[in-house]
């Protein structure tokens, strides 16, 4: 068995002033190197809170978090943040620099990276997200998807082991969303990154190796995307959209056709459709 990169043991968290409900309730979770984990669930299910506890932006009320075998404490906090990069929801509010290259360099400046190396790493990171032509542009001249790609470049320039996408695509249009997911997927393949993505977006969750479903501060289901997506109707209650093949299946079922119960990808659906047509 592989050793987990991130270990969460019985994490509980309660926001100040809320005395009845825990935002996180006894969550235990292991994340392994090179994995893509999607965290899904409706609003207020504790997804973002969980992400913030992982890199120490908020300290859990009880329980412990280990990153690479090291417990996240006051003393190890900054080392942990070095290993974990985070991309947030709002593309405007996380853009610190005045231009694209300044923003990418911001994290490197914080770590005291010498300037020569910084220039090379900024250039590299911008090439990876295909934003090298925009290096001296100001954020006001970029689209949402471009700003989000710059945010990713800022994170990968730091060479982290883990990237957490905290609803990083939720404010983007479908095209921007596609671009960002594609960029992440490519970076992940190239550098064996661990990705934790918190999302409502079904396409993003479909890229994951493992999907965790959260409700009321607890992880209630865990499985591969195929296992989770085959639940159909249940997904809507969990604040998620149903993948297109599932929608099609439901519509066919309504019209009296017998459809397979297991989850099918779009290609799988096409295959099934034209073979089932032949059977008649």
């Amino acid at each position, binding site marked *: 068995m592989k050793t987990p990169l991130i270990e969460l043991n019985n994490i509980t968290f309660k926001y100040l002033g809320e005395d009845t409900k825990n935002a996180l309730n006894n969550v235990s979770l292991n994340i392994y190197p090179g994995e893509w984990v999607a965290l899904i669930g409706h609003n207020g299910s504790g997804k973002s809170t969980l992400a*913030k506890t992982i*890199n120490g*932006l908020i300290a859990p009320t009880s329980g412990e978090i280990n990153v690479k075998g090291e417990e996240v404490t006051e003393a190890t906090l*900054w080392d942990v*943040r*070095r290993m974990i*990069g*985070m991309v*947030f929801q*709002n593309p*405007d*509010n*996380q*853009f*610190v*620099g*005045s*231009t694209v*290259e*300044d923003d990418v*360099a*911001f*994290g*490197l*400046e*914080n*770590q*005291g*990276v*010498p*300037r020569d190396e*910084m*220039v090379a790493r*900024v250039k590299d990171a911008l090439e990876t997200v295909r934003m090298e032509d925009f290096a001296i542009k*100001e*954020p*006001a001249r970029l689209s949402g998807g471009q700003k989000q790609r710059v945010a990713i470049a*800022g*994170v990968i320039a*730091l060479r982290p082991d883990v990237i957490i996408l905290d609803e990083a695509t939720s404010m983007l249009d479908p095209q921007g969303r596609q671009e960002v997911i594609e960029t992440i997927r490519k970076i992940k393949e190239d550098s064996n990154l661990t990705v934790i993505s918190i999302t409502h977006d079904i396409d993003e969750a479909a890229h994951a190796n493992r999907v965790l479903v959260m409700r009321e501060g607890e992880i209630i289901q865990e499985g591969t995307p195929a296992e989770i997506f085959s639940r159909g109707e249940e997904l809507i209650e969990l604040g998620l959209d149903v993948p297109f093949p599932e929608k099609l299946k439901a519509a066919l079922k309504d019209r009296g056709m017998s459809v397979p119960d297991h989850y099918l990808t779009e290609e799988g659906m096409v295959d099934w459709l034209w073979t089932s047509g032949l059977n008649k």
Partner: protein
Amino acid sequence: MMNKLILGRYIPGDSIIHRLDPRAKLVASFYFIGIIFLCNNFISFGAMFAFTIFAILLSKISLRFFINGVKPLIWLILFTVLLQVMFSQGGEVYFKWWIFSISEFGIKNGAFIFIRFVLIIFMSTLLTLTTPPLSLSDAIEYLLRPLKTIKFPAHEISLMLSIALRFVPTLMDETEKIMNAQRARGVDFGEGNLMQKMKAIVPLLIPLFVSSFNRAEDLAIAMEARGYQGGEGRTKYRVLHWELPDTVVVIAFALLTVLLVFIRS
């Protein structure tokens, strides 16, 4: 509304003035404002005027921008000039009524003040038109650095400045959005008397204020997540280069000062 504002705007270009070190430009502009008070006759003002026009020509920016820069302040200038003209005494008196008088000395003083105002505005407009706000904040940080010894927070000030500058267009967009959203709900901006106008601003100001708080929190979290721990132990991505033309600017200003000292009366 915002497009008319020339002061504080930057026009991209590639002239000698554009390429100067922002530190040189910043110091030179302030120095210029200082030495303009050395002038006290038409020859010295003439020299300053020629110097300013030469600098403007070097920047390859149309004179129109500079004149537009003066326009919003023209009433203030005329008012000051008028006061000078009417209340200064001395020399030959051309006209006198009650406590007002127009004299040779008054007219001369008025003209000097007019030229002084225009030259100061021209020079500061030249600074902002040719220097990106970001370079300016770099220059300010550099110039504030010696103050660190007396515990002056130079890094924090410059970070605040650069974040503020970066968010100006973002907040402008948001202001516009909120204005339109409130207009769609029936708020009338810029209508009615002063009191009504002021009241109409509230539905714009409060949402803007609240969203600034949210932005600040998001930004602080994003900065922390990227390892920001304050100014200690940080390296810098942008570096300023002092080159030959910058030294030439310093020499030019030194020569100008010497010249002024000799031709002032």
